[in-house]
């Protein structure tokens, strides 16, 4: 096995375990938070952690699909993870629109450029995977 497939396999295995660990730790933190702050904090905590939890879930499914060799599923799962992260960043950043405070609006627009990078990056990632897998499929058809 050459270096690149080895690096990719290791990264994907690590990613799969990390996603599982993250989801477990997130659940534990949610229970810990509930015991400290009470049930009234549940909706706020769920809303805050839902985008990252969904992103981890989709990334876990993508890594598992990659291990199983199911290439067609991977770009879709990565794109879904990107949409989840983007929704988690864009919705809170649009809230100042309601208040229409120009200073808040400018600061949230600036923050949005930085914070939307992971979500937009994952969408571009999915597009690159689609292009790459198309090339691999073309080779299979040619053979």
């Amino acid at each position, binding site marked *: 096995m050459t270096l*690149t*497939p080895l*690096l*990719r*396999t290791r*990264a*994907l295995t*690590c*990613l799969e375990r*990390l*996603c599982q*660990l*993250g989801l477990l*730790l*997130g*659940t534990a*933190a*949610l229970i*810990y*938070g509930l015991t*400290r702050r009470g049930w009234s904090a549940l909706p706020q*905590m769920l809303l*805050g*952690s839902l985008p*990252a*939890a969904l*992103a*981890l879930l989709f*990334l876990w499914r993508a*890594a598992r699909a*990659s291990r199983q060799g199911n290439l067609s599923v991977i*770009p879709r799962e*990565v794109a879904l993870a990107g949409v989840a*992260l983007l929704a988690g960043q864009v919705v809170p950043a649009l809230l100042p629109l309601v208040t229409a405070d120009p200073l808040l609006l400018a600061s949230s627009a600036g923050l949005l*450029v*930085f914070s*939307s*990078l*992971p979500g*937009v*990056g*994952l*969408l*571009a*990632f*999915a*597009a*690159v*995977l*689609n*292009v*790459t*897998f*198309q*090339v*691999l499929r*073309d*080779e299979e058809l*040619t053979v």
Partner: protein
Amino acid sequence: MTRSRRLLNALLPLLIVATVLILTVLGVLLIGDLLVLSYGDWPGVLTLPWTVVTFAGYWFLTLALVVAWRRGPLCSRVSSHLSRAGQWLFWSPLLLIPTVLGLDRLLTVRGWHTDSSQMHLPGESFSPDVLLSMVVSVTLPLLLMALSGWLDEGRASLDRQRTTI
């Protein structure tokens, strides 16, 4: 041109602008760190490793994005830059924890903290949204490394197809 290629062509300039902005901010931080360090003050030492590692990661990421925009994602330099970016950025969130803890302690020692600005880190970092965001920020560099592997495989496949033709 396929739909994925069109989407990629639309997203790459956005990503390049965002990463260049982040690189600029990190560059200013790096210069600030070095200036503070030259005065023999502690915060520079605390934040310098994180700033250097993150700057290097974003530097390689920006290079990969620019090359992908100009020459296409299957160029050999894209995968090598992405792999390096993934390896640098993997350490960035891991270094952030001791950096924030160190800065918090330093600010407390110097008495610059007010009650409202204090971070209360153990409780804060154990809240599910912060914890999950941290795990996501560790997983994304791993994805970059995996992507560089896929790109190498795609390029090799393209080379084989050209040779066959």
